[in-house]
């Protein structure tokens, strides 16, 4: 791998050196450093790190000259932060590529990120916050023979930590945009797509004849007509049993998923309805390994991603093995100068989502080829997650802007966190958020955020034999409150945040989680230092989650873009 990196850099430099033109190309990139110290705090269960300080850092360099591009990323984990998988270890260049584009053909050698349709059968992407990077290493060709026709094909292996998983992926995608093809300016716009991907992995099971080539297909349709828009995608995966009994899957069921949404919008008003269903649709880069590092497809979660801490305290994650969900969103702007809107108007967003299990369990749970759960089923199914929330965004006067949110969420903690039913039960939380910004002058402002979460158990587990009021052996976390204050100026910022678990059933765990931050930013550089305690919890991006351990210590973040 290092030889290839050397080659890429040599090529780029020789490009620079041999050029007779004044345009020598451009080099740019970005840098990010995260240092964190870990001290023991028995109250919150935070552990000290043997190394005292842990480090995650990376540097991206891209060189482009006309239609030629090359680049690499240097990553450093000495050792990885506590919320990262310890498999991220040491330094290296896990990402390097060369791309060339000519007459509608694009060739990439080395690493590339790729997504087919919505990602139901294949998505290679990076999400640094989660420690996800399943970048491909191999070859990719994209070709557009004429306007409106887009073809893609690739071969490669997918990254896990600092190595590549066993499976070899071969894939292709074609997209046909009717309007582009016929150069039509019609109000109705149609685009069709089809994808295919196949994973080869040698079989090692002597007893069962499991497929060595596992393929998945998907088809999609995007229709737009004036203010209306529709998107639908269906995906199918053949059976993919594991070699080893210890892996989560040792069955011959095939998988399928579909997702669709329809929306209508005009100036000041927008509405969208979405639904999806997935059954046995976990697709991995190694059939015998579990864990998010091996996932090679992406089923978007059907709930609103929340930005405020207490709204995201109990987040939803997609159950690719089997779930059915619906979601509705309404966006509305109350006009300026109207009776309700006042001088500045207001923005309203209403969201509802509900996700439940599949009828009689998914094909995966039933471990059979024959079982087909009912296509649409809501009543009587196990509820995984439900969220109704209303947000109002309003400028109050020249100096003050406010954001108000009300939400009610139901979170099946047992199921979504993989516990035995009855361990934690189902939580119902009611959440309020108030967020005000006061502009002092120029670029100076103060921000105050107040959040409360009141939670209750929806199921009675009194027969569970637990020691707490809720019938469990673990105390319920109960109610939370949070206050955050922030000062911002052109270059400096200071923040204070306190999350207070005042309703914990265990009185000794009614703790304050205080965080202080200070920083400086100018142009494309940003420096931040912090000190504080973090609660053990689940952190999700796009419905993919990781468990973040509780921690106590200092942090330093430096990031730069050039």
């Amino acid at each position: 791998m290092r030889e290839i990196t050397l080659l890429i850099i040599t090529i780029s430099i020789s490009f620079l050196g041999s050029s007779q033109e004044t345009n020598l190309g451009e080099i740019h990139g970005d840098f990010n450093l995260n240092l964190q110290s870990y001290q023991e705090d028995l109250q919150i269960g935070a552990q000290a790190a043997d190394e005292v300080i842990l480090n995650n850092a990376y540097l991206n360099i891209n060189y482009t000259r006309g239609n030629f591009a090359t680049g690499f990323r240097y990553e450093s984990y000495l050792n990885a932060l506590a919320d990262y998988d310890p498999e991220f270890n040491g330094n290296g260049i896990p990402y390097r590529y060369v791309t060339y584009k000519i007459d509608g053909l694009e060739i990439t050698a080395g690493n590339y990120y790729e997504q087919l349709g919505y990602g139901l059968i294949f998505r290679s992407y990076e999400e640094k916050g989660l420690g996800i990077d399943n970048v491909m290493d191999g070859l990719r060709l994209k070709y557009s023979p004429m306007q409106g026709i887009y073809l893609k094909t690739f071969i490669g292996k997918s990254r896990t930590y600092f190595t590549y998983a066993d499976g070899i992926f071969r894939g292709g995608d074609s997209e046909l945009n009717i309007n582009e093809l016929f150069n039509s300016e019609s109000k109705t716009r149609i685009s069709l797509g089809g994808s295919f991907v196949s994973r080869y992995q040698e079989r090692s099971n002597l007893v069962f004849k499991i497929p060595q080539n596992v393929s998945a297909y998907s088809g999609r349709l995007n229709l737009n007509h004036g203010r209306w828009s529709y998107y639908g995608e269906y995906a199918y995966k053949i059976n993919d049993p594991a070699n080893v009994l210890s892996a989560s899957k040792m069955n011959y069921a095939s998988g399928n998923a579909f997702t669709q949404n329809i929306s209508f919008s005009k100036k000041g008003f927008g509405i969208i309805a979405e639904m999806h269903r997935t059954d046995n649709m976990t697709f991995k880069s190694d059939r015998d390994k579990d864990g998010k590092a091996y996932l090679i497809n992406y089923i978007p979660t059907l709930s609103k991603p929340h930005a405020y801490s207490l709204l995201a305290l109990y987040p939803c994650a997609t159950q690719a093995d089997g779930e059915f969900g619906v979601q509705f969103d309404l966006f509305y702007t109350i006009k300026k100068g109207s009776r309700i809107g006042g001088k500045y108007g207001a923005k309203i967003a209403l969201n509802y989502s509900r996700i439940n299990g599949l009828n009689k369990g998914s094909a995966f749970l039933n471990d059979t080829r024959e079982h087909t759960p009912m296509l649409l089923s809501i009543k009587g199914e196990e509820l995984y997650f439900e969220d109704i929330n209303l947000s109002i965004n309003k400028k109050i006067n020249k100096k003050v802007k406010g954001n108000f949110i009300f939400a009610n969420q139901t979170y099946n903690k047992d199921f979504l966190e993989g516990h035995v039913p009855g361990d934690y039960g189902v939580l119902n939380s009611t959440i309020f958020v108030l967020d005000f910004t006061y502009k002092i002058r120029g670029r100076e402002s103060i921000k105050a955020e107040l959040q409360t979460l009141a939670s209750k158990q929806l199921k009675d587990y009194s027969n569970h034999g637990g020691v707490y009021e809720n019938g469990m052996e673990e105390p319920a976390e109960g109610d939370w409150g949070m206050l955050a204050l922030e000062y911002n100026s052109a270059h400096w910022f200071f923040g204070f945040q306190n999350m207070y678990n005042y309703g914990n059933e265990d009185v000794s765990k009614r703790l304050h989680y205080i965080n202080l931050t200070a920083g400086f930013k100018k142009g494309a550089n940003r420096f931040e230092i912090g000190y504080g305690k973090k609660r053990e919890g689940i952190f999700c991006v796009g419905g993919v989650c990781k468990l973040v351990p509780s921690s106590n210590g200092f942090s330093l973040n430096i990031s730069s873009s050039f």
Partner: protein
Amino acid sequence: MNNKTFLTFLAIALFTSISFGQTRTLPNHIVKTLDGDNFNIQNIENDGKPIIISFWFMQCKPCLKELNAIAEVYEDWQDETGVKLIAISIDNTRSMSKVAPFVNASGWDYEVYLDPNSDFKRAMGVVTAPHTFLLNGNKEIVWQHRGYNDGDEFELLKKINQLVK
């Protein structure tokens, strides 16, 4: 290759980049329009007037603050400087389909494109959102800014005014 050799190459590469006082332009990248069409970002046009490119996503509070704040003064900015704002949504497929109804409901008059797997974002070296680039009349990047606080839009306006005077 040992680390020393690698670092030497890195140093040469970086040094070369610094020494030729580069102008920075947009990479050759395809993004999606809200209608699902393909669009090469190099084809953005504003008749030789400045262009703002702003990376945002729906869950990002400061991004929405920035785009809402500019929306209030956008008409004036356009009249005075002819500037055009291009908003690049990096929402992944979880919220990508909500972008069009959200943008229309918000009443933004921006050109909006989708970058659902962050390919364009990566090519631009964007680490966090919002990240705002200012392009001059020749579509060269002349200024960039990360994050947003109330009032930052006036700093941006100052830079735009320097370009058009």
